[in-house]
């Protein structure tokens, strides 16, 4: 998409909530209709700003979970217990409500099929959101870029987009998805448990000689560990891109 189009949308816009999906007990996806949205690339995020009646404002960033789709933008929000913004988005907003946002932002962490691969996607928890935009874009474009996706969850009930991921793993060619559970696995799970450490990455990720483009997203601790392990294993640091959700995100 034209860079000029990306630059145009620099001011706050008021978007309407058009669709809500409760992905897990703590996670909701919100589809927003944004007037004059110029389109975006997978990996871009938006700034969301809430304003209370007394003028108090709070803002957070949320990754766009869907490829560009006219004026529609979908974000996937995890409710943080002590959060200020996330509980509002997951529990208070209803279809028909409006929310103020700005974007698309974050040209550093974007991928589109023309950038090639192989693609290495690694996420912890709700960090999957921007990688889901990448995966969905790859499928939509019927690209043949091979993808390996590694997803770390705390427990079975934390898995976001479970049905869609299962369908992709089953039906799509050239896409491998591996889940691991760090606290408690689902009943009957025979797959992987434990963190995505250096050993796990050595086993599951593309090798450095395959020169993958790696996108790592999630809590700071996980992202740090995975990004440095990948570089340690021999991956080109310039091809390992990271997006960390810090503790101030709530």
């Amino acid at each position: 998409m034209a860079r000029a189009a990306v630059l145009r949308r620099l001011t706050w816009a008021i978007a309407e909530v058009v669709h809500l999906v409760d992905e897990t007990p703590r996670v909701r996806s919100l589809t927003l209709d944004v007037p004059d949205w110029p389109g975006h690339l997978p990996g871009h995020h938006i700034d969301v700003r809430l304003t209370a009646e007394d003028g108090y404002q709070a803002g957070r960033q949320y990754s766009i979970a869907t490829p560009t789709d006219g004026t529609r933008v979908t974000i996937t929000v995890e409710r943080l217990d002590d959060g200020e913004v996330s509980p509002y988005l997951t529990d208070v907003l209803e279809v028909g409500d409006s929310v103020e946002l700005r974007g698309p932002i974050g040209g550093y962490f974007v991928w589109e099929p023309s950038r090639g691969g192989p693609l290495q996607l690694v996420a912890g928890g709700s960090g999957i959101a921007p990688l889901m935009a990448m995966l969905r874009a790859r499928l939509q474009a019927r690209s043949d870029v091979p993808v390996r996706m590694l997803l770390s969850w705390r427990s079975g009930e934390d898995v976001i987009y479970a049905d869609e991921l299962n369908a992709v793993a089953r039906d799509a060619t050239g896409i491998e998805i591996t889940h691991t559970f760090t606290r408690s696995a689902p009943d009957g799970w025979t797959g992987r448990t434990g963190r995505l450490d250096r050993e796990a990455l050595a086993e599951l990720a593309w090798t450095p000689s395959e020169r993958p483009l790696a996108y790592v997203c999630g809590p700071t601790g996980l992202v740090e560990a995975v990004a440095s392990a990948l570089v340690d294993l021999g991956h080109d640091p310039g091809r390992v891109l990271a997006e960390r959700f810090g503790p101030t995100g709530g």
Partner: protein
Amino acid sequence: MTDAIHVDGNALGGLLIEVFGREMTDARGCCASCGTVNPLGAMRVYRSAGDVIRCPTCGNVTIVAVVIRERTRVHLGGVRWIEPVA
């Protein structure tokens, strides 16, 4: 580990737009301390009384953003130059 309390320069994306008028996270910045060039989005942002951006290579401060009385000021003393993507 619990002390990694930084986020990425991406988290500053919106603020950089306000100051520069355009998307800047894929702009390249040259650290004034060590001379390494990195995308602003790869720099480490520590959030406290302001946002302190540090070079991912040497750790020195490149950029500091403070919001004082609702005005944003971005201090660029730690970068030698910034080059947006064409």
